């Protein structure tokens, strides 16, 4: 007996050791599963538990700077199926198929899918309220109507490229909607109906409703009134010239705020599927890159003035129609040349050889320093996706010829927005700004401002004095030179034409230009800079002065009017050309009787409206310049009414 007791004790020791080892391994394993597996299991777990009917958050609204709504939401319910709760899939499928207008098989797939919650995409998503009521009236167990909404752009194609659009899941896909998706989209809410793994609702446990967090409202720098003018002018240009494309930008040169931006061809954000992706993906003002042509001469001019390389009034230049650089003849756009000119006239006439001389006086490094300082060759930093950087010559490869062409805007590639920001800097006193669209974030409920975007001034490139000289020279371009099409009485518009050749495969296309104009006003204190480019206008001479300048003139004139900018009277007078008609001042006719009107002689075509014997209102307003023989409108009424 004694011996075996010892044996048992020894053997017990063995077993206990073995047990301890097993338990130790077990403890390690338990600790690992409990504490270390968590990270990568949590996704799996969440996916497995959520038995929630989602409540989409409303996206924040997008407003213009004055609170005009540009993007909002409309209620559009969605149908959800919880297949495990559907008792008779055949019946449910046939009913759903009829109401939603889909095949029985498709409906059957929906209600029998091995998923917890099935979205009936796309026929059952974001449907009308009427359809939703129809579905609800079917009263099928396991079919739910979830409150949902879809994006609505009340102004249609208006500002479409900048706004972009949101997809079926309310996710921003392009434009501002994409760039600021995080803040606009909000947080989805849910109703958790405490359903278990079998998809059954649990009795005795209250449903939990988690409110969706509405996205923040975004106030843009865009002025809807200016944008409306831009859209109108581009509509007219498209109708008139049938171009391959068109674009326009308006900015506030003193802050970099974008006031308006449009790109053609355009699209309706709610029907973006109806156009090819390149249309909605290419916001031309920030995306496209091309040779700027003569508008680029503003940069050369500003650099030459700042460096003291030219005196516009006193320095003279003789243009024989070409200039020879390194044995190559660079021709002026005007056959036979401009002859003897001051450098101010060189600018007015957009004389290429004259700018070659300015480029040569600056030298390669100085000119390219300025080009880079003005922001070319890199993104402007605007809050939009897909911005182009442009292409500059590699300085090491710049010889005299490249220097010469760069000076008048050939051989470089820039984006429209780069030009606008550079010219803004040239005319606003010399300060380069970062352009931006998002002005303020607003609380969607209280309307309180959550965050304001201040303007971002990058650097001063030229002095106030140089900037003033540039403005003066460019006002001369409009009053006396190639930019006369943009002249508007009283608004002191300055600007520069551009006619860029399009290069495809290393060759310039014949008779296919991008004609452009960049203008600003008023010249004494610019409030707006507007750029327009029309790609390959048909049935017209392809010159920026002819096609683009009048558009910019219209945009600036009407925009300054709505912005409340006073007309000036110290304007540089327009030099009349043979096709200009004489302008007369619009007389003040309000208060005249019809008899007095007939007795007086006005060289105008008069239309009257309304009943009465006294003129109570007139268009245009007194003092405006109108062409002789132009049509004016007079509104008639009774004197007593008028005096009320």
């Amino acid at each position, binding site marked *: 007996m004694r011996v075996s007791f010892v044996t*048992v004790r020894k053997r017990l020791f063995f*077993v206990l050791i073995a047990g301890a080892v097993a338990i130790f391994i*077990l403890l390690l394993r*338990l600790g690992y*599963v*409990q504490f270390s597996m968590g990270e990568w299991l949590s996704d799996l777990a969440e996916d497995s*538990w959520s038995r929630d009917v989602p409540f989409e958050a409303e996206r924040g609204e997008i407003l213009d700077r004055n609170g005009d709504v540009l993007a909002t939401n409309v209620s559009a319910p969605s149908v959800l199926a919880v297949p495990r709760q559907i008792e008779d899939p055949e019946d449910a499928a046939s009913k759903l198929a009829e109401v939603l207008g889909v095949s029985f098989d498709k409906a059957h797939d929906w209600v029998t899918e091995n998923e917890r919650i099935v979205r009936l995409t796309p026929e059952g998503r974001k449907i009308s309220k009427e359809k939703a009521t129809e579905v609800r009236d079917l009263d099928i167990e396991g079919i739910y109507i979830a409150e949902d909404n879809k994006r609505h752009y009340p102004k249609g194609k208006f500002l479409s490229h900048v706004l972009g659009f949101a997809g079926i899941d309310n996710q921003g896909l392009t434009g501002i909607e994409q760039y600021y998706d995080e803040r606009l989209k909000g947080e989805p809410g849910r109703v958790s109906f*405490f359903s278990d793994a*079998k998809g059954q609702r649990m009795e*005795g446990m209250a449903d939990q409703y988690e409110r969706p967090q509405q996205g923040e409202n975004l106030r843009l720098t865009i002025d809807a009134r200016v944008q409306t003018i831009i859209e109108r002018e581009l509509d007219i240009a498209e109708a008139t010239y049938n171009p391959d494309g068109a674009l326009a930008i308006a900015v506030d040169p003193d802050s970099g705020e974008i006031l308006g931006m449009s790109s053609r061809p355009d699209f309706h954000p709610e029907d973006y599927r109806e156009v090819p992706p390149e249309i909605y993906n290419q916001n031309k003002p920030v995306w496209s890159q091309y040779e700027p042509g003569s508008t680029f001469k503003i940069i050369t001019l500003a650099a030459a003035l700042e460096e003291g390389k030219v005196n516009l009034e006193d320095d003279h230049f003789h243009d024989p129609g070409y200039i020879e650089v390194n044995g190559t003849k660079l021709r002026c756009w005007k056959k036979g040349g401009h002859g003897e000119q001051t450098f101010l006239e060189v600018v007015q006439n957009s004389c290429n050889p004259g700018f070659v001389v300015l480029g040569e006086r600056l030298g390669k490094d100085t000119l390219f320093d300025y080009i880079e300082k003005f922001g070319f060759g890199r993104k402007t930093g605007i809050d939009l996706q897909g911005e182009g950087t442009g292409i500059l010559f590699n300085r090491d490869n710049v010889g005299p010829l490249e220097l010469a062409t760069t000076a008048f805007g050939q051989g470089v590639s820039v984006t429209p927005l780069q030009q606008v920001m550079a010219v803004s800097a040239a005319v606003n006193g010399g300060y380069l700004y970062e352009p931006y669209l998002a002005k303020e974030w607003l609380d969607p409920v209280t309307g309180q401002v959550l965050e304001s975007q201040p303007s971002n001034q990058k650097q001063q490139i030229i002095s106030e004095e140089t900037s003033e000289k540039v403005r003066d020279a460019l006002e001369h371009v409009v009053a006396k030179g190639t930019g006369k099409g943009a002249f508007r009485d009283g608004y002191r518009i300055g600007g520069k034409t551009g006619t860029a050749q399009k290069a495809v495969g290393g060759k310039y296309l014949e008779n296919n230009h991008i004609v452009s104009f960049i203008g600003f006003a008023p010249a004494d204190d610019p409030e707006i800079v507007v750029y327009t480019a029309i790609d390959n206008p048909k049935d017209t001479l392809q010159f920026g002065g002819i096609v683009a300048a009048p558009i910019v003139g219209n945009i600036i004139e009407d925009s300054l009017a709505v912005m409340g900018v006073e007309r000036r009277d110290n304007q540089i007078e327009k030099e009349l050309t043979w096709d200009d008609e004489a302008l007369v001042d619009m007389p003040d006719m309000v208060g005249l009787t019809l008899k007095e009107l007939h007795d007086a002689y006005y060289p105008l075509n008069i239309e009257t409206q309304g009943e009465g014997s006294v003129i109570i209102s007139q268009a245009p307003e007194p003092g405006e310049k109108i062409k002789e023989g132009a049509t004016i409108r007079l509104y008639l009424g009774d004197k007593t009414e008028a005096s009320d």
Partner: protein
Amino acid sequence: MSRILQRYDWVLLGAVFALMMFGLVMIYSASFPLGIDMAEDPFYFVKRQLIWITIGLFVFFILLHFPYRLYQKFIPLIVTVSILSLILVVLIGTNVNGSQRWISIGPLSVQPSEFVKIAVILYLAYVYSKKQKYINQFIKGVLPPLIIVVFMFTLIMLQPDLGTATTILLVGGTVVFLSGARWRHLVTLGALATLAVSWLAFTAPYRMQRLVAFRDPFEYEMQGSGHQLIQSYIAMAHGGVTGTGLGQSVQKMHFLPEPHTDFIFAVIAEELGIFGMLFILVCYFLIAYRGVVAGLKCKQLFGRLLAFGIVFFLLFQTIFNLAAVSGLMPITGITLPLVSYGGSSLLVSLIALAILGNIAKEAKQQDIKHHSSVGADKTFQA
């Protein structure tokens, strides 16, 4: 009075009671969604478990005072009843999920194979304590009792229930080992048993599947056992260090299969985190510790083998269950003793612990006698 109370091993009894009550709370927490689902009664499983606890405590109290030595007289009866009940299961048992393990008695169902575990421990402890003189001989000493064990194993495999059958082999093997059989014989028997169990595991397709799913649960998620294991992982990981709080398990909401039986530890880990896990492990440690101490103090070889057999039986069950829950071993359907829902397993654990308690009680009584006799009469020669 105090002398009577002193006879009990209160640490052992306290740990048993604490585990059982803790189990009851956790069964409620883990099973109320299932109870609502099955019988629209969140207390459905708790009520049943309470009945079993009442019966179990009654049996426990009686057996605690039943001198363990007397079991030796009933060994032939116990073995006979065990074998008969196993045959009965094969013949008229209730089939649940493809295995025939239960016999229904009125509203309650009993799983005889659970009770056979104790029968085997009692039987082997008895036989080997009697055969000490020729335990070194294979044919005469070691083998004959094992034939009966293998017979029982075969009957259980007919249900089929590999988990329980393996437990019986393992517990039986431990008793044989402890009783001092030769290493040579033990290695041979161990190899044979391993071969048999492996063969059975690999030949039945569903067991093979479990085994493969256990190796790579995420690959085989769609299949039952891979899914179970993943749900168990998720529960434990969800609990983390502090747990989600009592009643806050998400996984019990029909995600984790068998949340109140085989996988109750996963729910405990999810809701109570490290605290729940530690509580359970400490209780089991106390039981095992007191059991080993009682066995070592026992002057009788039968009592000693019996105590160790019971301790290791409970230990194996616990290890198997925790290993399955944490993915260390394939899922075998072995419950967590005293904690998991289930009448038979609770009753068997309580019977085993009552026997262990009785051995401990006797050991204490000896201590007390020894002390008092030493104190009363210093001339007593031991």
